């Protein structure tokens, strides 16, 4: 059993609502073993192409760059909520 709620139904709803064709999923290290399960569920239920982010997921400050160039319509990032950046520094 997954220790954390992946809320996959929320992802499916969002993909359908936004008509996303290419989706990138970014998981924290503890959830990366579930990438297969999540990827398959999204692909089967929505037909969207799923790209699994290989790299880091340190926080909501750590969003992959350049995904637009790959035609990614939606990024789903687990393990964090909205990050409030302080423009004046740390």
């Amino acid at each position, binding site marked *: 059993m997954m220790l954390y709620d992946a809320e996959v139904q929320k992802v499916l709803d969002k993909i359908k609502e936004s008509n996303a064709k290419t989706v990138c999923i970014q998981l924290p290290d503890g959830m990366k073993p579930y990438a297969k399960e999540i990827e398959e569920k999204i692909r089967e239920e929505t037909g969207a192409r799923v790209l699994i982010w290989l790299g880091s997921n*340190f*926080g909501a400050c750590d969003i992959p760059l350049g995904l637009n160039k790959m035609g990614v319509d*939606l990024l789903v990032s687990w393990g*964090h*909520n909205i990050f409030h*950046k302080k423009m004046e*520094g*740390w």
Partner: protein
Amino acid sequence: METLFLEATYSGTVELCPETISYLTKKGYTKIGLYASVQFVGKLETVESQLNELGVTSVTSRPDRTHVKGQLLGCDNYHNSLNLDKDIQVYLYVGDGRFHPLALVYAQKDSNEMKEIICNDPINKRMVLMGIEDICTILKKYRGSLVKFFTAKMVGVLITIKPGQEQFKPALLLEKKYLDKRFYYFIDNVISFDQLENFNFIDVWVNTACPRVGFDDQEKFVRGVINLNDALSVEEILGKESVFNKKIQ
């Protein structure tokens, strides 16, 4: 491109383990600062009622970079980031791992006294205590880097391009404050530690990416590293009566 954040809330029960309850009772704490990582922060009702039964008042705050009250991020590791304006006797952190609660230790390094941090891990149902001894080795090296920065002539400033981290403009304050130093700006996506030594003309580094890099990754910087906000107030940090100056020599 849209971004959907999902908190990955812990699926199990979030409560105080017997060890935490008996420790709180033994110490007689009556006022605590309560924080949790995002996976647990929305499920603290049981913890709050357990504290209530013990006669313990809990207070909390919304730290600078978080989205909800009581949430703790590893990067809110400077005292003023917590925005906690009430007196407490101890911190209680609910969650697993060391990364987040260590932010509460770092946040107190420039204070006059260190309050202990009780970490209640709801997954493994155990309690761990944290304090200055957990970061002594890192802070000793950090002190060395602060002193080094003070006399350094050639300073490498590390800037990362992630939207949540990029701090180029705040870093420019350095050259206004320190007219006797020459600052070189380095840009990267994630800091490439293995590249640092190629730039052998640098005396010391200033980190503007995640502030935890300046502490937790101190060992990866042969020439030392300090965080930007500390670089902007080195004299003040080294001169004040603080846990950092009393315990770390």
